[in-house]
């Protein structure tokens, strides 16, 4: 089982490499760092603050957009091009194929996060800001955010077209990042609206958990530039992310299992 899943994952990673997705990632990294340099020069104090903000925002934004872009095509293209015929006719279960595709994409996205992280770290060291534990924690949280978004995209890709999947995944990414704000905004509304909103938000991944810098957590302000979340928070948020990934992949596998490949 592991061997088959790994074979699909490796092939998915190879595809991303061959179609030059990884070069695209490098371009994004260079672009983001150039932006950080320019904005850092414009900042009166603390250029490293700009580098951290741009670096983390870059990982979250470009990572999530790459996850959506790659994810929505992942299963759809296999079915449309009929490449899947030569694969699922071999002794592999369809869920293994879905998991393998996801892991391959997760590998690509991890490369993106690592390259972004290294670039940001290099920039911080160059500017004399140093790489703190808070930066490490924020990186791990961003990585999980990207992995959850990838699972969202692959879930929609298991039954929908890339266009619709992209819209759904993008919408859930945006909603997921502002769930506390939506909840707060609807508190003043009627109890019915508030209740419905709460239920709806329960079925959306809480992506804001992965980008807590600048927010208030249990009444305390947390920031990657100062007091940040403890490691226990990072662990729990990561588990939360893994839970969502497992659920989304399970649903994707069930939907994919029921499909006819004509």
């Amino acid at each position, binding site marked *: 089982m592991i061997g088959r899943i790994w*074979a699909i994952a490796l092939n998915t990673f*190879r595809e991303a490499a061959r179609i030059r997705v990884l070069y695209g990632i490098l371009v994004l990294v260079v672009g983001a760092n150039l932006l950080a340099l320019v904005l850092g020069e414009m900042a009166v104090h603390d250029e490293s603050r700009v580098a951290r903000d741009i670096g983390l925002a870059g990982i979250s934004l470009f990572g999530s957009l790459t996850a959506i872009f790659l994810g929505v095509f992942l299963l759809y293209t296999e079915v449309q091009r*009929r490449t899947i015929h*030569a694969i699922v*006719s071999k002794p*592999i279960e369809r869920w293994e194929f879905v998991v393998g595709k996801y892991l391959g994409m997760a590998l690509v996205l991890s490369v993106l996060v690592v390259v972004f992280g290294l670039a940001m770290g290099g920039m911080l060291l160059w500017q004399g800001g140093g790489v703190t534990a808070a930066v490490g924690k924020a990186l791990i949280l961003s990585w999980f955010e990207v992995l959850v978004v990838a699972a969202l995209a692959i879930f929609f890709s298991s039954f929908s077209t890339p266009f619709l999947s992209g819209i759904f995944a993008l919408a859930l990414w945006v909603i997921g990042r502002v769930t506390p704000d939506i909840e707060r905004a609807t508190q003043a509304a009627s109890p019915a609206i508030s209740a419905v909103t709460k239920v709806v938000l329960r079925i959306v991944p809480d992506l804001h958990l992965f980008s807590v810098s600048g927010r208030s957590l249990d009444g305390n302000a947390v920031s990657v530039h100062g007091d940040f979340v403890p490691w226990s928070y990072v662990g729990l948020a990561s588990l939360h992310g893994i839970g969502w990934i497992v659920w989304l992949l399970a649903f994707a596998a069930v939907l994919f299992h029921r499909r*006819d*490949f004509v």
Partner: protein
Amino acid sequence: MADLAIEVAELKKTYRTPFRRKKVEALRGVSFSVAKNQIFGFVGPNGAGKTTTIRTLMGLIRPTSGTAKLLGHAIPSRLARTRIGFLPEAPYFYDYLTVGELLDLAGRLFGLDATTRKQRADRLIERVGLDRARAQSLKKFSKGMLQRAGLAQALMNDPDLVVLDEPMSGLDPSGRKEVRDLILELRDQGKTVFFSTHILSDVEAITDRVAIVARGVLVGEGTPAELVNRHILGIDVVVRVPREADAELTAAPAGITRIRRLGDELGCTLPADTDVEAWLARAHDQGAKVVQVVPRHETLEDLFLRRTSDPAPGEPPAVAS
């Protein structure tokens, strides 16, 4: 039964069109069986249900009803698929891979170790004549080369049963001969080969048994000899006779066809139920000398056209890929 490689019973598949939800019956109760160590040809016109049957057997499509077993395992069976090699119709593989990488991927999915993968890939690449294209990505392959790569990946697991959907498609005459030779070689190795095609000369040349499918149902099954020998379509006769005798000799019996004159010879096809001796006696009276009398048997092509052309009363034509 242990000696059957494929058992299909009353297999049905009904699709619904996306918006109007109109029913399309691709398979309307297909039943047949394939004994082990046979070459079985599955023929039919476009849209007959050949590919739908094969995709159902390979687990790509779920049947609406009916049952099927591959090597004794009810479909879909992962266990059975470990012993089956499959070439899809007009195969499309990951075009960023080389043929070696494609075979390596197939080997990994079959659970082969690295040494076996390498050895088999090398042997198969050479066997299908792609040795010189090893370094090229599949993107640069012609249709015929892709077909060869597809055959190679179908044989990576040294299968007991090989299922080939239109394996001769896209190949030139020499390529088709190579595939025919390969299929015969596989049978000699004790394997079962099930292949679909609409190239009837290939079927007549190599199959042990044939099934003809049309409009989602089987319309004939047997050995090529069994299927075609049952019918004599007419008797081809050629006699050397003066031109003046043509009208007299072709006037009776009714139904004489393919009348032609080649120099001093008259040729025609008498109806199958003609009293040939009486006709020849009449010809002799006109001064004819017999050159040739040959009963014209039905060819597989005749049978194919006859069985697949006219839908049974009340049967709407079915559409299948």
